[in-house]
């Protein structure tokens, strides 16, 4: 495991553990407070499994009032709280701290209202993303954001991370697909934002909470928008002889006015890996493979596909295969969706990165990743949500070799720095968490970060809710010569930055 700086442990809290546990057992049903080592072990990590930590205790409240009372108690007693949905996050946002209560929302697992008259579903946050679609599909509806972990990830976690997915190119990410939320602040205040209406008046607090990685409040209810299934969905598999051709084709399709439902790019390494694993029938002579999916009305989809074929040919495509039926369309995706296990079969460990770049820089970033792969002597396979410039390079390594995780993390950090330099972002959809925390200074200067910290402080005065995430604590922006120190004092001194 690589070393990770975490906020200073409050030893006073550790010594009061049994008192805190018994207090918590008075606040909520005692069976929902876990404190024995074997009980809390499953909560030691999320999907960034390289990092583990044991929480002080785990609480599993069953309703909003209980969440409010737990937070109020912890706020009064200066106890840190780590909220957790399904624990599928890839950036370590739900990593516990030794002196913190882990607040699991697993018992918030009910869909509260399916409102077909207003095309929305009101749900508790622990419900999985895919369950929402399952609950409405009998009437031909679905919930659009589809993170790859949708089978397991919770909708509350989706709100915290502003999760996207393959189809966010056309339908947006979580923030564009929720209408309302109920949240509880660290001081216990319960607040309802939005509802079943479009937009809201006043400050867009829902927009602020969405993607705030559990630092501003705990989501206890979500109202999501549901959409009617499109008439037709078709996909095409297009192979290209070079990275440039594939990248140019993606850019040209988007700028031609076509908005596909999804558009993915895989490089040769990932084509080979997934073909061996899933046997999806991918063209093996392609250096780059594009999967493009279109939905809408029959005639529109057909006319867009014709246009895409034309653009692909213009960009030297060496194969173009159209899905003839639903089975074939699903087969096209089976390879892409097997990217993670396929990489898992190729190396003992893999590390999934997540950055964004302007679409036009696709071939440039791919070349840079190839260069870095040689520099670090680590193999990499690339799968991109190319339509919206979101990259997921999968770095292959062997975690049992002491230095390899560190080397992998450095490789990943260099990719993300390159993304920012090319006008992109550090993270497209996985969040900052602990993983990219120290890279925030690449994207923001001290004033930018200070503004965000000021917001955090305004809603969580004592910095108790999910501390140590998102904002740098190890490498201060000061080292970049950009920190603004006012009269020798740092702003927001109670935030642990060392």
């Amino acid at each position, binding site marked *: 495991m690589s070393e990770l700086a975490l906020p200073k442990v409050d030893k006073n809290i550790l010594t009061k553990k049994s008192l805190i546990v018994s207090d918590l057992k008075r606040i909520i049903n005692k069976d929902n407070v876990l404190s024995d080592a074997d009980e809390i072990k499953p909560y030691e990590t999320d999907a960034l499994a390289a990092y583990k930590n044991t929480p002080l205790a785990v609480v599993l409240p069953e309703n909003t009032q209980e969440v409010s009372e737990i937070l109020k108690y912890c706020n009064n007693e200066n106890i840190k709280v780590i909220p957790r949905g399904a624990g599928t996050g890839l950036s370590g946002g739900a990593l516990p701290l030794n002196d913190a209560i882990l607040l699991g929302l697993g018992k918030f697992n009910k869909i509260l209202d399916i409102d077909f008259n207003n095309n929305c579903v009101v749900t508790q946050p622990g419900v999985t993303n895919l369950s929402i679609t399952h609950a409405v599909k009998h009437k031909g509806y679905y919930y659009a954001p589809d993170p790859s972990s949708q089978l397991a990830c919770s909708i509350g976690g989706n709100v915290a991370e502003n999760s996207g997915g393959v189809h966010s190119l056309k339908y947006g990410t979580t923030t564009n697909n929720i209408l309302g939320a109920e949240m509880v602040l660290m001081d216990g205040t319960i607040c*309802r934002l939005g509802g079943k209406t*479009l937009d809201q008046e006043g400050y867009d607090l829902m927009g602020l909470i969405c993607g705030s990685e559990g630092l501003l409040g705990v989501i206890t209810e979500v109202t999501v928008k549901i959409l009617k299934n499109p008439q037709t969905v078709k996909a095409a598999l297009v192979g290209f002889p070079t990275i440039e051709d594939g990248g140019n084709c993606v850019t040209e399709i988007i700028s031609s006015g076509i908005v596909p439902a999804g558009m993915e790019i895989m490089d040769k390494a990932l084509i080979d890996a997934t073909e061996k694993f899933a046997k999806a029938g991918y063209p093996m002579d392609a250096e780059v493979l594009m999967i493009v999916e279109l939905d809408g009305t029959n005639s529109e989809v057909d006319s867009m596909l014709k246009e895409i074929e034309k653009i692909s040919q213009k960009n030297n495509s060496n194969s173009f295969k159209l899905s003839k039926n639903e089975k074939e369309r699903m087969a096209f995706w089976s390879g892409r969706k097997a990217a993670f296990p396929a990489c898992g079969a190729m190396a003992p460990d893999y590390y999934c990165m997540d950055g964004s770049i302007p679409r*036009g820089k696709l071939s440039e970033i791919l070349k840079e990743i190839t260069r870095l792969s040689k520099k670090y002597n680590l193999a990499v396979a690339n799968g991109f949500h190319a339509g919206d410039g979101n990259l997921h390079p999968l770095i292959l390594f062997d975690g049992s070799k002491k230095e390899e995780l560190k080397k992998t993390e450095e490789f990943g950090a260099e990719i993300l720095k390159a993304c920012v330099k090319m006008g992109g972002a550090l993270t497209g959809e996985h969040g900052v968490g602990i993983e990219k925390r120290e890279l925030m200074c690449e994207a923001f200067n001290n004033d930018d970060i200070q503004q965000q910290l000021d917001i955090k402080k305004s809603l969580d005065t004592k910095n108790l809710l999910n501390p140590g995430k998102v904002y740098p604590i190890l490498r201060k922006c000061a080292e970049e010569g950009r920190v603004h120190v006012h009269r020798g004092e740092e702003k927001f001194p109670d935030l642990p930055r060392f």
Partner: protein
Amino acid sequence: MFIEEKKNSQIYQDSNYLKPDTEIGVSNLVKDFYKKKLPINLQGTNSKKYIGYNVQAAKTLDLSNLNGVIEYLPEELYIKVLAGTPIKTIEDLLEKHNQQLAFEPLDFGYINEGKSNKGSAAGCVATNYAGSRRFKVGSVRDFVLGFRGVNGKGDIIKSGGTVVKNVTGYDLSKVVSGSFGTLVALTELTLKVSPKKIFQNTIVIYLKDIKIVSSLFHKVLDSSNEISGAIYIPDEPKSKKFDLNKSRVFKFNDLKNDGPFFAIRLEGDRVSVQERLQDINRELELKKYKTSILDNHQSVPFWIKVNNLELFTNTKNNLIRAVIPPSNSEKLMKFLGNKLKYFIDWSGSLFWIEVPDNEDNKIAQIREFISNNEGYMTIIMKSENFDFKEKVFSTDKAKLMISKKIKESFDPKSLFNPGRMYREI
């Protein structure tokens, strides 16, 4: 600070009306106001000055000199502009590349001055009022990819960027959207642009049964035919308290405007629009009603007029913008009856309601009804004798408390547009 800027900011400080040319100029002025604790009225091109409460500030900071396109990359689908750039400039440029702002910025010029005035990019974002395509594509805030601005301490801050997928830090672009200049003096905005659909048609359905209107709205929302606009315009009340504009504004060869009508917009390529027209006829069972089709030449100006709010041109009355869950549209139509002038947009969600001067009690009744029916409302235009007993924006206790904290984090001395949205902020 550069000597030239120092000189300029000195000149600005001599006057109560300040018009900096640069972001650093804005920052220096705000830093100075911060020191002196001087509240400021922030404005762009002033096209929406009548929305909200009057700002009690001796100083005005006019940001309209921050005008110009910084970067427009049609193939990357974004445009980066200085925040004071007029929306018209942006739309004209996009038009040349067959692109558009898909959220359809509203034109608030007609209701106030009888002619077009779309204001600036900053004003559009700061108010977050999207047009008819909202229910299909999202609101203004969904198209803000990033911004730069100056907070209430004078610090230059930024958030977001130019890419659509970005979850790096809090999404401050959302918070500044709709904040009416109370958090940040916007200096730069990056907006997502969209390809323009080359062809459109509008189906006009002549009906007045509000039950059927409501059920049609629902069917539109449920349709997979990619409908990008659905409005209902009822008859105007026969009262001298209202200007009767409907027949003048919606004057088209293929529109019979002597009664109420429902209109549905379809956009796309010609073949697709034609095919969907057939399908919608079946889906919405339109055979039952009298209908007509506005071709591309009529459909385009028709929706422009809708989004110009031309029905309320030069009104001297109060104008309310109410948003409710679409299934409550029938109830609200029933409540409004035929005594008030209104129309419905966003396929049943958005009501624009005109309430005569000196009838503030009616506004109170509407607000009560809206809040009992899970909606919210804003008094966009206040008539001459509006008595201010009714709040312009609605909120609740917890939300107001949180909003105060957010305000304080951006603008700790409450310098920007104090009281514009809420008395307390």
